[in-house]
């Protein structure tokens, strides 16, 4: 078992339990929102997913920085998987956000809202990460360029977040602030558990993919060692590090 597979089962069980608890709290404990009513329940899946996606992008940048510092390939793979996972969470955020916008505002998308537009910009920025990797054939150069991209784009995420928070003309509700915000206790508890569940899901899926990649690499290395170089089919050009 690879280092990434260790503790994966326990983590997966903890993730399932936390997310199930969070969803139970969403529908059976958290009160209906006075303003939006039942539609506000989307908040508990949409916002934790958005926060996790943004943290995943930043994590990808940090791991990319580790690759540039050490030159060890494992950091590039970790950065790649972190960004890959964050993109999946980001797609989920955009879709659930669109559904919530349609239910609340009557439109699938509101261009005048800085939160929506800035998240889309971050997503589009990171959507170019894989094509960038794919366009470079040499694995070392691919890792180096991708890591530089991950660091720069990762640094853009908190800057973007601060810029949006500073903007005044928004229609997006602000319920989470450093001073406590305006979420009642039961809603806050539900949200925190949903956020923890989403974070655990991200870590579990990251470990799962890392474990699968590490196992595949070991199989290829074993085949090469036992049966010779010719026994292993050459890797096709790929965005994924191997």
């Amino acid at each position: 078992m690879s280092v990434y597979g260790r503790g994966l089962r326990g983590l997966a069980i903890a993730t399932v339990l936390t997310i199930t608890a969070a969803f139970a709290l969403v529908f059976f404990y958290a009160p209906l929102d006075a303003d939006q009513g039942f539609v506000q329940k989307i908040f508990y899946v949409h916002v934790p997913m958005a926060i996790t996606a943004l943290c995943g992008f930043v994590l990808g940048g940090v791991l990319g920085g580790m690759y540039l510092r050490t030159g060890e390939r494992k950091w590039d793979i970790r950065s790649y998987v972190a960004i890959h996972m964050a993109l999946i969470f980001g797609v989920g955020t955009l879709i659930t956000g669109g559904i919530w916008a349609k239910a609340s505002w009557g439109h699938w998308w509101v261009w005048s809202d800085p939160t929506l537009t800035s998240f889309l910009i971050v997503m589009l920025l990171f959507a170019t990460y894989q094509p960038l990797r794919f366009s470079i054939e040499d694995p070392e150069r691919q890792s180096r360029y991708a890591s530089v991209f991950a660091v720069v784009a990762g640094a853009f995420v908190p800057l973007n977040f601060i810029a949006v928070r500073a903007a005044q003309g928004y229609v997006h509700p602000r319920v989470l602030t450093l001073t406590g915000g305006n979420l009642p206790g039961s809603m806050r508890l539900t949200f925190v558990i949903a956020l923890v569940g989403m974070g655990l899901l991200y870590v579990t899926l990251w470990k799962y993919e890392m474990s699968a990649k590490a196992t595949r690499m070991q199989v290829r290395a074993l085949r090469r060692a036992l049966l010779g170089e010719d026994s292993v089919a050459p890797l096709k050009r790929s965005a994924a590090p191997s």
Partner: protein
Amino acid sequence: MSWFVAVAPALPLHTAGKYVAGAYIVFLALVLVYVAIMASRLARTERELAELRRDVELRRQSEAQDPDRQREPVA
């Protein structure tokens, strides 16, 4: 089931329910699709591993039948 129905709050499913259900289904579908893709990749790795095991076994058998044959270097 009757207990569940009794404790379940009266959710306004006729109005916003479809949107809320849609959002949660999107989340679950994303996770399921991802896990399914990863499972298919894992199955491919398992197939390769079984193939490798078979190749090693064949190699071992041929070496047992012909012990004088020089072993190929293993990296």
